[in-house]
């Protein structure tokens, strides 16, 4: 068994000190209290600040426990996620001319957290709150590909054949997921509803953790070219919006 890592022990000591003092502390106080050289203490608090575990008061430059610590142990609230994504989801629907979905993993399905109508004036029903299958939708495949810790393994899923195009073999699904990881988005060429396609990209919070997926939904022939590739304009818009939302989630 490898030995304890000194810098992690020291970081833990800094956090305990900040949490136990009840007021913001200056760098010199931290260094003195833990008997550390000033540059060492500075490196530790700066790193902790960068990951969000320590906050620095802008006026006094003193340090205190960061808001990132409170989030540990809590799942990201899905309604916070919607609030952070709403403007960009609207912008994506406006620029792509397609409907936009936002989903999170819940048990063994995708839960739709947000839905923006396709902006074409047609009658549509709000689908927020619905459950979608992980293996047969772009949102689900995106979450399987990019959030493997939070989702079941493909081999453990019920690969129900929703359409003739649904992936019903775990090995094939694994290949789809590998492709998705490689190009940064997951696709659905009518695997849940015949003719309805989708493309979805991951939403990342602090530390790159995937907390949800943002997807375009529409007629498969509008999303994909004759060779089955996602139209470049849509890929760019989708990835751009998911990047912007991820920035807002930091």
């Amino acid at each position: 068994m490898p030995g304890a890592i000194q810098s992690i022990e020291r970081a833990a000591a800094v956090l305990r000190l900040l949490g136990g003092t009840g007021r913001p502390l200056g760098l010199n106080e931290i260094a003195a209290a833990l008997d550390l050289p000033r540059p060492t203490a500075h490196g530790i608090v700066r790193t902790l600040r960068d990951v969000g575990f320590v906050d620095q008061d802008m006026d006094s430059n003193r340090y205190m426990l960061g808001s990132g610590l409170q989030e540990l142990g809590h799942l990201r609230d899905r309604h916070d996620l919607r609030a952070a994504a709403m403007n960009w989801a609207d912008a994506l629907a406006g620029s792509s001319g397609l409907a936009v979905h936002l989903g999170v993993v819940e048990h063994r399905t995708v839960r739709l957290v947000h839905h923006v109508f396709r902006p074409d004036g047609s009658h549509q029903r709000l689908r927020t709150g619905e459950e979608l299958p992980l293996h047969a939708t772009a949102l689900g495949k995106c979450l399987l590909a990019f959030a493997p810790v939070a989702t079941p393994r493909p081999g453990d899923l019920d690969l129900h054949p929703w359409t003739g195009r649904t992936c019903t073999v775990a090995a094939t699904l694994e290949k789809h997921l590998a492709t998705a990881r490689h190009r940064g988005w997951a696709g659905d060429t009518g695997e849940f509803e015949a003719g309805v396609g989708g493309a979805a990209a991951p939403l990342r919070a602090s530390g790159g953790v995937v907390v949800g997926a943002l997807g375009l939904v529409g007629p498969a022939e509008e999303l994909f070219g004759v060779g089955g590739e996602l139209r470049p304009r849509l890929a760019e818009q989708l990835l751009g919006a998911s990047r912007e939302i991820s920035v807002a989630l930091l």
Partner: protein
Amino acid sequence: MTERVVASIDQGTTSTRCLLFNRSGRMLAVAQLEHRQHYPQPGLVEHDAGEIWRNVTRVVPAALRSAGLGPEDLVGLGIANQRETTVIWNRHTGEPLARAITWQDTRTDGIVARLAEDGHGPLVEEISGLTPATYYAGPRLRWLLDHVPGAREGAEAGDVLFGTVESWLIWKLTGRHVTDVTNASRTMLMDIRRLEWSDKLLDVLEVPRRMLPEIRPSAEVYGTCTTVLPGVPVSGALGDQQAALVGQACFAPGEAKCTYGTGAFLLMNTGERLARSTHGLIPTVGYMFGELSDRSGLVYALEGAIAMTGSLVQWFRDSLGMISTAAQIETLAGTVADNGGCYIVPAFSGLYSPRWHPDARGVMVGLTSFINRGHLARAVLEATGWQTREVVEAMDADSGVPVTRLKVDGGMTANHLLMQFVADVLDVPVERPLGSEAVSLGAAYAAGLAVGHWSDVEVLRANWHRAAAWEPAMDPDLRRRERENWGRAVNRSYGWVQTPAGD
């Protein structure tokens, strides 16, 4: 060649923002700065008009930079502003004489009470359409004239000018002293039919006519910027809630929108007809996209103002600590199936439309051991739904045109549980447009119409796209019972504040 765009300044209660819109109404860039809230005493809320102006000079270039555009790419600039906030300034130095008194400030209660005691209420109401209240700008101007050293003498000598915020900003940008007619309709000084300052009302409030801006339509070239955006025409201005009416494309009589922010404001287009309210609503100018000479393009509106909606959620978050973000109230409310019999009436500073009970205070009723945090969260959200319902009932009664669907915008439209509840209690579909910036978009529309960037409002109607719709799904019996419970809860909020004898 880059597409030409319209710039919009949204000068709000807490911040000043600049947004750029393309021809299809899509937002291209936004920049924002908050300004300080000054609370000299309880009930007093002031802004520094100089700080607001400095923020304008910073957010406008910032928005252009973020879009990679310059002043030459702009066809015009529109302004939407916090309404009823009152500024006086020296025309020679360009400096405000005092801090601006904001719309939330209640220092004019004495002036308003005296108007009523002196029997001026019916005259004010007949001419301005407004029941005297601390909400409007005129009494604030009177207060400033009475209390700021040199204000009255300066005004009479023509050295001191009055304006609501759009008037102040247009003057700073172009040097012209004008106000838009929607803002003028909130002063309690304008004849709401003739669209002119009323000598009678000026006499009642002892306001020198010389200090007033010229009343102009909502869309016309008021002047050309000499600073910030040199050469760009300032070509539109509307009070923020009227701007949202325009941004939501409510161009036909009977069309209504509700903006859910700190408070909520429901406005219905009543066309050329000034609808008088016998149910606690405010008749106001909706917008005017024509000529003053023939009153063309004049549209009136009825308004219902709800004081606490988003601010109740903020209270639940900040003062009670029940949630850590506003959005999490939906999660908490989702942990229970219904309100468990609990109702919250947020009459924190009295009740506004349609009941207007200044002596009411907040109550929470129906508490039992069964009630948990989830029920309270639900009661907080339901309060917004029922207050909307009361305003819509008053609208239906006053306008004679029933609301058949409601367009919504503002931050609280992110809350789907709330929007579904609003649809359920109104029993009409609730619709959210793509892009939640109806206020800024409305000001941009006015500015673009004035310079021919858009030919008419029908073109703008085509820019409105439904992003979400909530259909009513509540059982009618349940709706009726809950409506009754809400009414009983509101009755318990009345008369809590007792005015000391002799006050």
